[in-house]
């Protein structure tokens, strides 16, 4: 059981996550979309969407610091345990609250605004359950497992286990003794990752960051070829027109 939960599940999830995205990109390029519902409703969306997205980005940063960065590194950077905890609880709490309230607004909107609800698929509903589950459990872990119950130092167990997966030397026993709420959060995350490539969450990889530093207008000239197709043998361009000087 231990091996299944903390070794097999992560690897299977990672394989599905990576393979799924590759598959989806190749076979469903035109389905690679957020399926935005902004057209149907924008008032609630304007509030809920940034709350949720910035919240979850903060949470991501938190996870990077908390899980990927070894305790040694933070200490070496001069961030001691108390400071770390204050930061983790306050920033984690704020980002968790932002994420959760944003999500609540989005779910409320999705259920009550007719056209948005009509545009909601079963796939979306499953995704919402998985996403909400992971977030709620994560927040519980932060609040209960960390602040209230006197503190649990996941950086001793959860973080090394997580990193160990990527060293290809998984240490399942580290996780086996973690509090239930951390275990549940970890499992819910792996399930979410496994579902990820098949939902609208793929838009994570299409975040429009390039727009920040790209001019509005792109001219794409044809490469050497015939239209958009590769040049079959014998069909090479005769080059009888003078090429435009670039």
């Amino acid at each position, binding site marked *: 059981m231990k091996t299944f939960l903390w070794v097999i599940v992560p690897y299977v999830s990672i394989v599905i996550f990576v393979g799924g995205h590759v598959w989806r990109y190749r076979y469903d390029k*035109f389905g690679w979309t957020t399926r935005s519902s902004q057209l149907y409703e924008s008032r609630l969306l304007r509030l809920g969407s940034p709350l949720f997205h910035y919240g979850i980005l903060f949470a991501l940063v938190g996870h990077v610091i908390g899980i990927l960065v070894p305790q040694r590194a933070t200490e070496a950077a001069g961030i001691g345990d108390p400071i770390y905890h204050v930061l983790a609880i306050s920033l984690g709490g704020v980002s968790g609250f932002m994420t959760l309230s944003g999500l609540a607004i989005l779910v409320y909107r999705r259920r009550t605004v007719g056209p948005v609800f009509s545009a909601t698929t079963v796939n979306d509903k499953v995704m919402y359950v998985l996403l909400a589950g992971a977030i709620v459990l994560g927040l519980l872990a932060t609040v209960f497992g960390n602040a209230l119950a006197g503190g649990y130092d996941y950086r001793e167990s959860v973080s090394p286990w997580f990193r160990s997966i990527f060293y290809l030397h998984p240490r399942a026993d580290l996780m086996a003794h973690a509090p239930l709420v951390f275990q549940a959060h970890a499992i819910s995350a792996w399930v979410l990752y496994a579902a990820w490539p098949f939902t609208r969450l793929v838009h994570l990889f299409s975040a429009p960051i390039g727009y920040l530093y790209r*001019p509005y*207008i*792109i001219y*794409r000239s044809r490469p050497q070829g015939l*239209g*958009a197709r590769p040049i079959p043998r014998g069909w090479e361009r005769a080059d009888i027109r003078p090429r435009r000087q670039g």
Partner: protein
Amino acid sequence: MTPDRRGPAATPGLDGEVTEALLRLGRHLRRGETSADLRTIIEVGGREADAFYRDRWSHDKVVRSTHGVNCTGSCSWKVYVKDDIITWEAQQTDYPSVGPDRPEYEPRGCPRGAAFSWYTYSPTRVRYPYVRGVLLQMFRTAKREAGGDPVEAWSLVADNPKRRAAYVSARGKGGFVRASWREAIEIAAAAHVHTIRRWGPDRIAGFSPIPAMSMVSHAVGARFISLIGGVMLSFYDWFADLPVASPQVFGDQTDVPESADWWDAGYLIMWGANLPVTRTPDAHWMAEARYRGQKVIAVSPDYADNVKFADEWLHAQPGTDGALAMAMGHVILNEFFVQRETPYFTGYVKRYTDLPFLIKLDERDGYFVPRKFLTAADLGSESEGAAFKTVLLDAATDEPFVPNGSLGFRFGQQGEGRWNLDLEGRDPLLTLAGGGAEAVPVRLVRFDTPDGTGRVLRRGVPARQVAGHLVTTVFDLLLANYGVRREGLPGDWPSGYDDPNHPYTPAWQEAITSVPAAAAARIAREFADNAARTRGRSMIVMGAGTNHWFHSDLIYRSFLALLTLTGCQGVNGGGWAHYVGQEKVRPLTGWTQLAFGLDWSRPPRQMVSTPFFYLATDQWRYDALDPGILAAPGEAERLDASSTADLIARSARMGWMPSYPTFDRNPIELVEEAEARDEDPIAYTVGALRDGKLRFACEDPDAPENWPRVLTVWRSNLLGSSGKGNEYFLRHLIGGDSAIRDEEVPADRRPREVTWREPAPIGKLDLLLSLDFRMTSTTLFSDVILPAATWYEKHDLSSTDMHPFVHAFSPAIPPPWQTRTDFDWFQLLARAFSDMARVHLGKRRDLVAGALMHDSPDELSVPGGAARDWKRGQCEPIPGVTMPRLTVVERDYETVAERMTALGPLLDRLGATTKGTTFDLTAAVTQLKMKNGVIRGGAGDGRPSLLEDVHACEAILALSGTTNGSLAVQGFRDLERRTGMRLADLAEEREGDHITFADTQARPMPVLTSPEWSGSESGGRRYSPFVINVERLKPWHTLTGRQHHYLDHDWMAAFGEQMPVFRPPLNMSLLFGEPQLGSVTELGVTLRYLTPHSKWSIHSEYQDNLLMLTLSRGGPTIWISPADAAKAGIADNDWIEAVNRNGVVVARAIVSHRMPQGTAYMYHVQERVVDVPVAETSRKRGGIHNSLTRLAIKPTHLIGGYAQLSFAFNYLGPTGNQRDEVTIIRRRSQEVTY
């Protein structure tokens, strides 16, 4: 000076420092070259996604076709095909030019047209032949019982009351199963053969409307029906699109300007026609002409889409347009004829209208009543046709003279060369005022009463004695009728324009129409003033909004008077522009020969649909309308009829209107009876009728031997579209469930001459056969459905009244699944029919009774249009004179299939006659033999082939003057002999042109000027009707040979309609016990119920198209005003029920400020296949728009056998009008079930 559009100088740079910094950074992060201003980036490649859209728009071929729907657009389309799948369509752009310095046809082709390809693969596509399971099983069983003989099998099913009831009552309740095409055809053919044998060929009927929208598909079925002696049912009058006023005034049916001629008008009134909605591809001319200085007026009860294009909006209340037009006529007559003379108008009306002709006045009860036209016979002439030669007074000599051009000159030997409008230098008197005339009081009639009944109107005219008769002119009568006062004349005259009490002043109309008196007078003045300045370039575009009323003929006559008085008819840019349906088959002669089998046998059986369905669906049993109520004061007794059904029977036996089924006996047996007694069948029939041993079927329409038995419907949705009185159709003709709420009329109000039977028959039809490519409200009730090809799957031809070109349908793909073209289905049916006929029918002789025909010497049978009924002893029954023309026709039933597929020999012998002009077709037939090939063997041996649809297309084009120049020239030469006028030059410029089918496939082909029509395209001119009449002095096909304001038929006098008058819509509460308009009870609010033509649903496209439904509310809707909605507590989008005595409709309400108070719109043809819930009122599936309507037949539409008031198919007949109806609307439970 041009304004500076650049605004303040733009500062270089983007949105701010940060943005620019990011973009500058981006230069290093991206491949490609960023421009100096940081706004663009140039990259090489990255266009892999192009392949996607290139694939999306790549295709294998493009095929030209068009849409065979009743749309006047007739746009040519490119149909794209990819992997043998029709993928999309796009507009063609290669129309012929309309000439320099004017806008062209393009852009044309609307979104509804572009949505058509959806049907090819739609879920409602009929893919296989279907037969209702219960019928199919019974037929199979019966076939075994009958030893494999399908005809006997059909007899065992249809003649067995129990079996018959089983499948008849199942109609409309689903239960279709797939059948093989062989079996479906076998059932249909057996029913036809058996019906001819048992009941007679005139118990078989075919209904297929609007041939112009796909001529060959129409013609092939009509040819089959006609060759077997079946009855083709009319559509134009049935739809109430047919303006009865057109034959009444012009002696011609719907000859109108092409839409490009709107551009030529200086003043344009859109009157009940919503151009941007129903004439979408042509509306641009109306919009463009305004930039040329044209003034545009919209007359419409609602704020319709066209109103916003107009300079002014006259919001006449529904059905009151006649009052407005009469008041405008009053102003024009007063200001342009009486107060001052307008030389152009006076010259025009003297030459081209009946206004100067003399009318006899008879004295009755101290009044004088206007009677008949004074004729040469009254002057003592005994020349040929003297009773049909009308008389003028010469202004110079003061003597009466008989001018050329009247009906008396049209057909006889003596009239040759004299049937023309040449007055030979004489100037006729327009009015008798002055010059020793006496002022006599004349009895006229007004109908502007609350209950719509007639009241006497006494007004004087100047009159004189001529040849012992007191006479006046039509013009003098017209002035009296319009209430235009002249000094010294007695009577009740209005005191001025502001007199609200005396018709027909502007103030009088204001109370009726709600249009301000000053506006009515001003528009009339402007309209006429423009016509005077431009010599007739004022135009009225009129449409269904004014044309579907009970009294529409009067509304139209009052419109047309505005145009004839101002000299606008026969002038480019002027005249009436009546567009209600795609009715004009430009290659008319060729289509007529093919469609009615005139190349093999004549005459065909052609029936007016309104009386046919009125009797067949038993609507007459509910119709309590006493025709006497409609009569002029004191005339009801003379009319002596208690019901409309009586008048129909009378009209039939006098030969006025056709009547099929004709007799209460099989017409084949009738001939056999006569032959058995060695008597002449015609004499025998007349004798039997006189003795009462034989009766007309319409005198006993409910007797089983008089029912129509087989009805074939193709290219049509009879039950979902035009079937006025839908619930009566369903109960009495079909036998399915219905929601009639009315009672049959009580015994004391029933017809006197028509037999009443109890109980009323349920489900008269033995077989309802339909051919369609989609499931419709009609196919759902059919017994057998044959899957038809769509418009992208066949060869055919299209033409319209709005464009002088003809172009092709071509198959983009072959008909998919088990569908076939109509052409193929009817060939198959004919083959199966002939095989069975070999055993059961063989050669027979059939007695055909036909009405007295228009454009034939039949018009001369009764002088003065006297109504004389032989059955009531008023005259002798003489076939072709006082009763229908009787003809014995050979029917070789074994060779029907062979005749179908070969062009018969009668064309060589008799030629083809269209509107009185005879074409010699020998050269054209010879050409066709080479073009189509020749049939070998059988009945059609050596004749041109019609085996394929392309052959039929070629035949239509080769046999018509509009598409074959040499025929046009030859037809004009024929007409030159009769008129003595030069005409052939109109066609000589294109004498060598012969449009072939390949030409029409290449691009739309402009047609040629031909005597089949009254307008001219010569020299690239825009088509406008009657320009040949005006410019070449060719007479109109009327009594006087001129345009008529006055009709002297007995019945026109009886109903007080000799001249245009205003009659309000029927008062449904008084006549039929419906609640008062506008009343509110717990049952809801009572509103006028109109069914206008909609943006798609039939006139461009059908309502069940998913793409179009997605753009609308997606189901049946009724429009009402906010005020009416408030009265009944209805909010927008609520489910409502509309109920009246005829049935129930469930729909959603559209509450809109655009609607006038007191009126509800349910747009035409919202199919019962889409979102029709169960009604609370009837507990049955809520009906369609026609569930609330019922036929009301106007008696004067039954007139025939006299001058221009003679029958021709789709030319004259009672209209199936429905606009006068009312309904109660209430909010229903919002929980709907299906």
